[in-house]
């Protein structure tokens, strides 16, 4: 980064700056946010980020919704990996209520979260490739996101905004078709990913466009609050799954890939390696699920877990629990809790204050995209416009998570 080397000086004969409005609906932003950029030729002199175009006041809405109705709000944060957000929220409430999950539920959650992580990283990495001009790779790997969505569909019926699972487990067990689709995915995806890597990893054009571009040191990254693959690409091995394991991640054997220079190439490599690790985690999880007693897909907590609909219609107790949960009449302790999960883009935190009412007193989302993105404008100074565009793609800014 050339923060300290001004490109533009007063006695420059061509001292005319061009103002470029990048966004809010520019194809290169891949989301609804705006950057007003001052350009000296192709170099960026200064930039101002404007965000909030799809702000939907989720934190305010959450103060008026019972816990189970907040899950659909979390879908719409990082909508490229909704299941991670859903699970993160469920686990926050479970932490508040001190519910311990059966191991099988934990492993099923791990499967679905790692699939979501893969789909998130597919989007980011193929879009880096797309923005450097490699459309083939984009179309080639992107179909596997579709296969992941088919797996979601089999489990919960939805594709993008999944609302998957319940507080206390899943709404239903994974069916055989879901397992078959996961197995098929595990067979086919590594082949495609290897081919994707063979097209890009040693590609001269790709390396020229990405290596040593937008380098970030670990100190800068920590100072700006970066987490997730972006922080790891600078060499800091911080991963919430390892540092504070949730959902039985401590049972799994996986590595946390780190980069060295924090440039775009390193971010790409870190995400790619994380996909390989996710594949391995899913395989381990499927093996572990086989060893657990079959058919368990939720914890035995009738006070908090929404009963099945057919029971509600035929069983008095289930009807009472259903009514109490739907009306927000559950006895949750008056407490505050912070729970973090490793989202696709970094540490996704939920800060929940409960005062015993039917809704949270306050719910705050620590959204990684929002915090990662604030470095974009300062680090773009002195950069070429085309480099800044790939830099933005490699930060994987999801507008839903940016604005909440």
């Amino acid at each position, binding site marked *: 980064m050339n923060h300290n080397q001004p490109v533009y000086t007063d006695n420059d004969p061509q001292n005319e700056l061009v103002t470029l409005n990048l966004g809010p609906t520019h194809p290169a932003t891949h989301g609804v946010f705006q950057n007003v950029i001052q350009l000296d030729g192709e170099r960026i002199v200064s930039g101002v980020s404007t965000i*909030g175009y799809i*702000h939907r006041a989720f*934190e*305010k809405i959450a103060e008026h919704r019972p816990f189970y109705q907040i899950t659909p709000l979390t879908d719409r944060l990082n909508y490229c990996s909704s299941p991670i957000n859903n699970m993160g929220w469920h686990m926050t409430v479970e*932490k508040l209520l001190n519910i311990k999950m059966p191991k099988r539920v934990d492993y099923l959650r791990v499967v679905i979260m790692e699939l979501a992580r893969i789909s998130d990283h597919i989007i980011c990495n193929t879009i880096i490739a797309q923005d450097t001009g490699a459309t083939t790779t984009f179309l080639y790997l992107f179909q596997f996101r579709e296969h992941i969505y088919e797996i979601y569909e089999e489990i919960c019926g939805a594709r993008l905004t999944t609302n998957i699972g319940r507080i206390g487990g899943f709404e239903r067990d994974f069916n055989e078709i879901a397992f078959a689709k996961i197995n098929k995915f595990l067979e086919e995806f590594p082949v495609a990913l290897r081919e994707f890597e063979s097209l890009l990893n040693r590609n001269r054009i790709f390396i020229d466009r990405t290596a040593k571009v937008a380098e970030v040191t670990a100190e800068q990254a920590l100072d700006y609050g970066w987490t997730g693959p972006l922080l790891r690409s600078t060499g800091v091995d911080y991963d919430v799954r390892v540092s504070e394991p949730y959902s039985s991640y401590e049972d799994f054997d996986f590595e946390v890939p780190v980069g060295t220079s924090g440039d775009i190439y390193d971010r790409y490599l870190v995400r790619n390696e994380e996909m390989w690790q996710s594949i391995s985690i899913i395989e381990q999880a499927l093996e572990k699920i086989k060893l657990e007693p079959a058919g368990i897909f939720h914890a035995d907590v009738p006070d908090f877990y929404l009963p099945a609909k057919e029971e509600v219609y035929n069983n008095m107790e289930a009807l009472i629990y259903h009514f109490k949960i739907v009306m927000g009449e559950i006895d949750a302790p008056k407490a505050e809790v*912070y729970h973090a999960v490793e989202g696709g883009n970094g540490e996704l935190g939920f800060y929940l204050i409960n005062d015993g009412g039917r809704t949270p007193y306050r719910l705050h989302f*620590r959204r990684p995209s929002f915090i990662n993105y604030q470095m974009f404008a300062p680090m773009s100074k002195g950069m070429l416009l085309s480099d800044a565009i790939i830099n933005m793609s490699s930060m994987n800014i999801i507008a839903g998570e940016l604005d909440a």
Partner: protein
Amino acid sequence: MAEVTNHDLIQALTEKFGEKIMGVNEPYGLLTFETHKDVIIAVLAFLKQNELASFNFLTDITAVHYPGKKQGIAVVYHLHSMVKKIRVRVKVFIDEHHPEIPTATTLWNAANWMERETYDFFGVKFEGHPDLRRILNMDDLGVHPMLKQYPLEDPNRVDKKDEYFGR
């Protein structure tokens, strides 16, 4: 590498700041304490630099509104020591009619947007912030919408009143 417990930390903090460290609590194992706005930056700087556990990572800044209290707005900081794998939550209660508190951007650049968001939604004025503007809401909104006096729904709705639920 020796483990650092909440107890060690609070001991070090009370040694340094004495009675300015109040309301120590450990909900779900996360060390939480309150402090005063005069010393908040000193407390954060101490946490960031002390040798027990360097809380070099600012996870989050947000605020909570407690209408009716004398000090009605709580500004909440979450810090994280990645090396020692320990978190800490610092709260500062400030007057909701004069919500002013020094900025933490002097310690972390990450605080910039977090404080802008807190200003946007709660009206907390971070003194010394380089660019304290609204961030998610439109500039001419006029109110700070997360304050509890602004209702979300039509207040005339009668089907969701607490009295119907025995509260």
